[in-house]
């Protein structure tokens, strides 16, 4: 904890007069007002911003894959943007084989009460690699792992990129890809045989199972009590 905890008032950066939140009504399908951050991104990053879509008043910005980390960093740090909350990292693959896979970031700015969806396109035949935003938002850790687990998209710069929903020894591929058969690649008996051959503990890494590492993080008093032979729990 570097800074003291302060309550966040949604929309307080807009000015002193903040309208009370209300359910939006009569939203147009296409002709909504774009999020002002989209225009700011165009001005700042030029052709790295490929396209801006406004659908149901939600703005989607398609950006260059190589510059995702830089753009997200700017959105997070710039005092006129302050996107302080990453609510989702996911991907979309379409049935149409020619359409590229999209990686999606949902960013929310609590001080400005804004929502921005960033997308980048991964064309077929290219390596499925995008920059990780873990260095900016720690919440990206598990979401990027899930995206890797389900789609096989590698997040460059993620500290611990491995499966999170399926077990680590899962050999059948990436379940949410369109070329993955619904019932899996192996027969039912083979799937059962593989999973039952594992220990229940085997799906955790040694780091997660290690209690020795946690010992140093205990308080001095707790360490002394444990050294004296006190047993805790079972």
């Amino acid at each position, binding site marked *: 904890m570097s800074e003291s905890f302060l309550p966040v008032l949604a929309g307080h950066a807009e000015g002193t007069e903040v309208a009370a939140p209300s359910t939006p009504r009569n939203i147009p399908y296409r002709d909504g007002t774009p999020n002002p951050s989209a225009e700011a991104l165009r001005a700042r990053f030029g052709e790295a911003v490929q396209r801006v879509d406004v659908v149901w008043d939600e703005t989607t910005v398609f950006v260059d894959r190589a510059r995702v980390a830089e753009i997200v960093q700017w959105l997070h740090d710039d005092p006129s943007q302050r996107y302080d909350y990453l609510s989702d990292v996911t991907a979309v693959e379409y049935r149409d084989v020619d359409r590229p896979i999209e990686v999606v970031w949902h960013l929310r700015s609590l001080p400005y009460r804004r929502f921005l969806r960033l997308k980048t396109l991964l064309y077929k035949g290219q390596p499925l690699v995008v920059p990780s935003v873990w260095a900016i938002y720690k919440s990206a850790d598990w979401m990027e792992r899930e995206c890797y687990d389900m789609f096989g998209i590698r997040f460059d710069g993620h500290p611990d990129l491995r499966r999170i929903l399926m077990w680590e020894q899962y050999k059948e591929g990436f379940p949410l890809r369109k070329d993955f058969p*619904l019932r899996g690649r192996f027969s039912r008996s083979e799937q*059962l045989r593989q*999973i*039952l*051959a594992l220990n229940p503990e085997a799906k955790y890494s040694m780091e997660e199972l290690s209690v020795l590492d946690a010992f140093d993080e205990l308080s001095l008093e707790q360490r002394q009590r444990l050294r004296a032979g006190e047993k805790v729990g079972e």
Partner: protein
Amino acid sequence: MGLDTRRVETNVDVGSAGSESWVTTKLDFLVNWGRANSLWPMPFGTACCAIEFMATAASKFDLARFGMERMSFSPRQADVLICAGRVPFKLAPVLRRIWQQMPQPKWCISMGACASSGGMFDNYAVVQGIDTIIPVDVYVPGCPPRPEGLMYGIMMLQEKVKKERMADKSLRNEMEPDPRSQLYIPPPLIDEVSEPFGNSVHQTRSGL
């Protein structure tokens, strides 16, 4: 397969007629009466069936009337494993471990469509019936079953317990899985019972 298949016993083999004495049959009756009316369930709730199971245990339906008021949240003090809800493959070794930790005598109720057959989840992640992992005594159909349905299944299990004979040694045989495949039943049989049926035969598959 090297599997230790359990003999199907329709009649209890007690040697020559009449050798099962009045004392042993009355002892059977007494022991079975005690066991059937104090089954301690180990609730293994993974999904919505567990909600219905909680309703069964709560005051309106009151599972305590059948001697099951004591939920055993440790497998070591449990008699009957009630698997309520779908079991994903990742949970399969955990369920197997819990079943192996339960002491004999032990029984298993598979509650609901998902635990019994995989239900609507005919996909890559869900076990197609827990009977491919552990032996099951009573299947309760429903999605989820109503509390009355679960209680009917429990009463069926009580009937089963009351019919057991100590002379039948095979009842308490602990089945050991095949050391190579870790499965109780032969793999072709598992593939056969996991075949899609009904509407799920026609569900769209990826054409890629």
